[in-house]
């Protein structure tokens, strides 16, 4: 009996002990487990941040979209419902079969999205028949919307998360929102994390089978951050129009603060197509197009800079005291060096010319001689100083660095010694040189602003502060007779000069003026006569294929060879000549020559840029700061 009682006591203690351990010691653990059982959370995407242009126009906005969801549980007969919807929305049998498969996989109370982007007429048709469509729910939601395609490359597009995104983008790991779209390219990609905002959630109670019992809490989350860019949507449109029908890019930059006013690549694509999943045919059309519409040529297209580099070749030679600008050289159409013949683009030759005329008429022979004396290493130092061979934008993943070759680079990358012949080719921007349109735009801007370093930017920063260069400029305007030398000003305003002697910069600028505005200049035919729009520019063409001796003899024209073998056409310029404010670079793939293909496009864009200068500057700092 005693044994039995003690046995009972032990069991009793055991049960009490277990109860205490479960309900007192580990209670909080089990409480959270019970809540985990009980609650399900569905994260909901907050409205994505908006991307505006400099004037507050929305480039990437959020628009209402109309969706149709169905919940099989509410419907009497899902297949009948699908059949009805098939007729109303003209869905294909394939799509219906796909939906049936999706529905079969889910629980009957889970909703399935029939269509995530109905047109208004489809949506109203569904609403009209709604009384006989039990189980169907029309839903109004919001999604990314791009008003036009002109900024498709600069802004980029959003699309659904891919497995690769989840692997590479850390911030997506905790996000886990069904149906959220994330930025894939352009600013949409680089600003993605901030534009996503913080997700909200719907918390609801579920039973053991996962059926929703009731909604417990909602949190709408925090709207993503809105960004104001330096782009001007009007100019984006003009640039796009100017590039109509050709493959190429246009970049426009404020030469003092580095604002990128326009960045356009052609042909473009419709970014809206990607928001709800691009269809196969459209994707094939885009990916098989030889003009590569998906490529942002302004930052990822790599092309030899061609004759546009002559500005830097000349500057480098002058800065290094290798050449006197007045030195005359005779161009016979070619020169021979160590038994190799180097041709000028002009078969007959330019005759005797000075450096200014060599830039104006873009003589190759003159710059062969300059380059030969200068050497590749000194040229590469100048080119790098002006922004070539490196990424110049912050956090723009498509951007490519390009190449500025020198002896060391060749030894490291190719494993061979540098030949003097390569120096000659490099001096006229052929050979190993590779650059992007945005780099050449920056180069031109930094020449145009008097040789000062600027940092290109696509976003208006929150304080919209003016930089030292602008301060110096304002000071100069107010005190035109200040006796301080430029060297003194550099110290006063802590400027970052890219020159040793500013005279050399001015010489190059003047030569560019001549190239555009004096008879015989390479871009003379595209000039503006109105002083307000007058620009100074340099043409260029990057060679795709060297002509054979026979072709050269026969003077084969670019328009006579196959499209893909034609030279790329370049034009870089700054305007207005009197008081430079903007720099532009234009690239036309396989355009033939810069003067005929690229300069006319620049002419159109420059006019619009200058016309809008007033509007842009009247947008005061205060307004922008308040708007943001």
């Amino acid at each position, binding site marked *: *009996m005693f044994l*039995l009682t003690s046995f*009972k006591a032990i*069991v*009793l203690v*055991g*049960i*009490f002990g*277990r*109860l*205490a351990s*479960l*309900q*007192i010691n*580990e*209670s909080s*653990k*089990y*409480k959270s*487990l*019970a*809540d985990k*059982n*009980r609650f399900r959370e569905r994260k909901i995407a907050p409205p994505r941040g908006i991307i505006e242009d400099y004037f507050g126009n929305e480039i990437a906005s959020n628009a209402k979209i109309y969706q149709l969801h169905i919940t099989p549980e509410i419907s009497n007969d899902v297949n009948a419902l699908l059949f009805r919807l098939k007729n109303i929305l003209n869905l294909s049998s394939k799509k219906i079969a796909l939906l049936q498969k999706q529905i079969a996989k889910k629980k009957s109370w889970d909703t399935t999205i029939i269509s995530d982007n109905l047109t208004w007429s489809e949506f109203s048709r569904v609403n009209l028949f709604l009384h006989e469509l039990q189980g169907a729910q029309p839903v109004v939601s919001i999604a990314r919307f791009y008003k036009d395609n002109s900024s498709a490359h600069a802004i980029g597009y959003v699309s659904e998360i891919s497995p690769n995104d989840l692997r590479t983008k850390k911030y997506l790991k905790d996000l886990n929102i069904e149906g959220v779209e994330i930025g894939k390219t352009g600013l949409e990609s680089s600003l993605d994390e901030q534009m996503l905002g913080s997700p909200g959630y719907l918390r609801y*109670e*579920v*039973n*053991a*089978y996962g059926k929703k*019992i009731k909604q417990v809490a909602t949190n709408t989350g925090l709207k993503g951050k809105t960004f104001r860019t330096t782009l001007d949507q009007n100019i984006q449109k003009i640039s796009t129009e100017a590039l109509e029908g050709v493959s190429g890019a246009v970049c426009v930059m404020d030469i003092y603060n580095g604002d990128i006013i326009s960045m356009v690549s052609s042909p473009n694509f419709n970014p809206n197509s990607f928001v709800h999943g691009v269809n196969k045919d459209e994707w094939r059309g885009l990916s098989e197009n030889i003009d590569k519409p998906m490529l942002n040529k302004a930052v990822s297209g790599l092309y030899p800079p061609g004759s546009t580099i002559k500005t830097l070749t000349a500057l480098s030679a002058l800065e290094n005291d290798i050449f006197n600008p007045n030195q005359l050289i005779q161009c016979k159409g070619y020169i021979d060096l160590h038994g190799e013949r180097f041709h000028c683009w002009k078969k007959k030759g330019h005759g005797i010319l000075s450096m200014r005329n060599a830039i104006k008429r873009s003589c190759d022979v003159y710059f062969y001689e300059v380059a030969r004396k200068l050497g590749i290493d000194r040229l590469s130092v100048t080119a790098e100083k002006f922004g070539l061979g490196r990424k110049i934008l912050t956090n723009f993943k498509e951007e490519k660095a390009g190449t500025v070759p020198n002896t060391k680079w060749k030894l490291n990358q190719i494993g061979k010694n540098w030949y003097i012949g390569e120096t000659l080719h490099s001096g006229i921007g052929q050979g190993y040189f590779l650059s992007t349109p945005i780099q050449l735009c920056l180069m031109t801007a930094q020449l145009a602003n008097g040789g000062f370093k600027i940092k290109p930017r696509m976003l208006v920063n929150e304080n919209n502060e003016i930089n030292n260069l602008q301060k110096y400029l304002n000071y100069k305007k107010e005190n035109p007779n200040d006796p301080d030398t430029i060297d003194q000003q550099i110290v006063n305003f802590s400027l970052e000069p890219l020159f040793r002697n500013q005279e050399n910069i001015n010489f190059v600028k003047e030569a560019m003026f001549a190239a555009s505005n004096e008879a015989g200049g390479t871009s003379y035919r595209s000039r503006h006569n109105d002083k307000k729009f007058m620009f100074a520019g340099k043409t260029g063409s990057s060679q795709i294929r060297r002509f054979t001796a026979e072709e050269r003899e026969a003077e084969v024209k670019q328009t006579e060879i196959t499209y893909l073998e034609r030279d790329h056409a370049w034009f870089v310029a700054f305007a207005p000549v009197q008081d430079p404010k903007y720099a532009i670079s234009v690239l036309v793939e396989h355009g033939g020559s810069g003067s005929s293909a690229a300069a006319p496009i620049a002419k159109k864009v420059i006019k619009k840029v200058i016309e809008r200068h007033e509007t842009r500057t009247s947008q005061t700092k205060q307004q922008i700061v308040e708007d943001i």
Partner: protein
Amino acid sequence: MMLNRNSLHTPFAIRDKVFDLDFTLLISILLLGVISMFAQYSSSGGQFDYHAKSHAIRFVVFFFFFLAVSFINIRFWNDYSLLIFILLILLLVVVKFFGVQSQGSRRWINLFVFNLQPSELMKVGIILFLSNYYHKISSSDVNKFKYLFYPLIALLIPFMLVLSQPDLGTAILILISGVVITWLSGVKWKIFAYLSGLVIVLAPVAISFLKPYQKSRILTFLNPDSDPLGAGYQIIQSKIAVGSGGLFGKGFLNGSQAYLNFLPEKHTDFIFTLYSEEFGFLGSVFMVFLYFLITFRITQIGNVTRSIFGKLYCYGFATAFFVYVAVNMSMVLGLLPIVGAPLPILSYGGSSMLAMMFGLGIVMSCNVYKNNTVS
């Protein structure tokens, strides 16, 4: 053999006998009955119509049955215990061949009004029979082989019948009830040790006869997290429910685990989990106390009743009752494998309720007729 008419039927005698009832036991049973109705009400998600209603009706009906049994002389129960036992064996045989099958086991007889589960009644029947058996033989004969043989057979027949239904839980409980009585009557430890040894030797053979679901239950008990959505699900969810109840519980009708159906079998085997989730540690301790009080009172009655039959029956039933409670609670608290053992009075189920009330009724009869000797 004869009923004592005087003590049973005269109104005067009944009034006398009413005061001989053990009121502590009576009130404890009533209290448990009331709690059980609330628990069943909660198990149906706050509806009376579903489980709570029939449970309440059963409790009331069987409570009167309990009172009726209490007022029948203890001699009657002694005299008829063999008959009752044989009747129950016959019922088990009937179940074996004509029973109602449900979820893979054959446990019930369809009586049209309700399905009777004879194995539940056998839990009391075996105690009744063995008490009677050891009452009859002299205490010096208890350890003789001949007198060991009968109880062993009497125990193994219902055990095997129930095991083959299959119903491992009830079979074990019947076995335990029988063993307890045998031991209380003075059978030596040694004999139990030999038999246990034999069982251990035969265990691997027995295990090969277990149904797959029974094997998996034992395996999951050893490691419930190995298969959280399969067999371990019940244990895990039960522990979550109890643990999340905390010190004071979530409140009546607020048990999320039960209400949202995470808890399996919440109206039968896991009714204590539901109660514990809603009333917390304090409520659970109170309930354990209540059960312990009942066991204690039964033992007390065993102490005061004069007949060997009564004493053996009370001690045996007290221990068996305690074991039922302990097995059920240990099971839902994850201390024992899930074997399917209802919690007396609280669990939904007519046969279990009938058996318990019948068993308690005989205990009460032992108290009412404590001074009667049994031939």
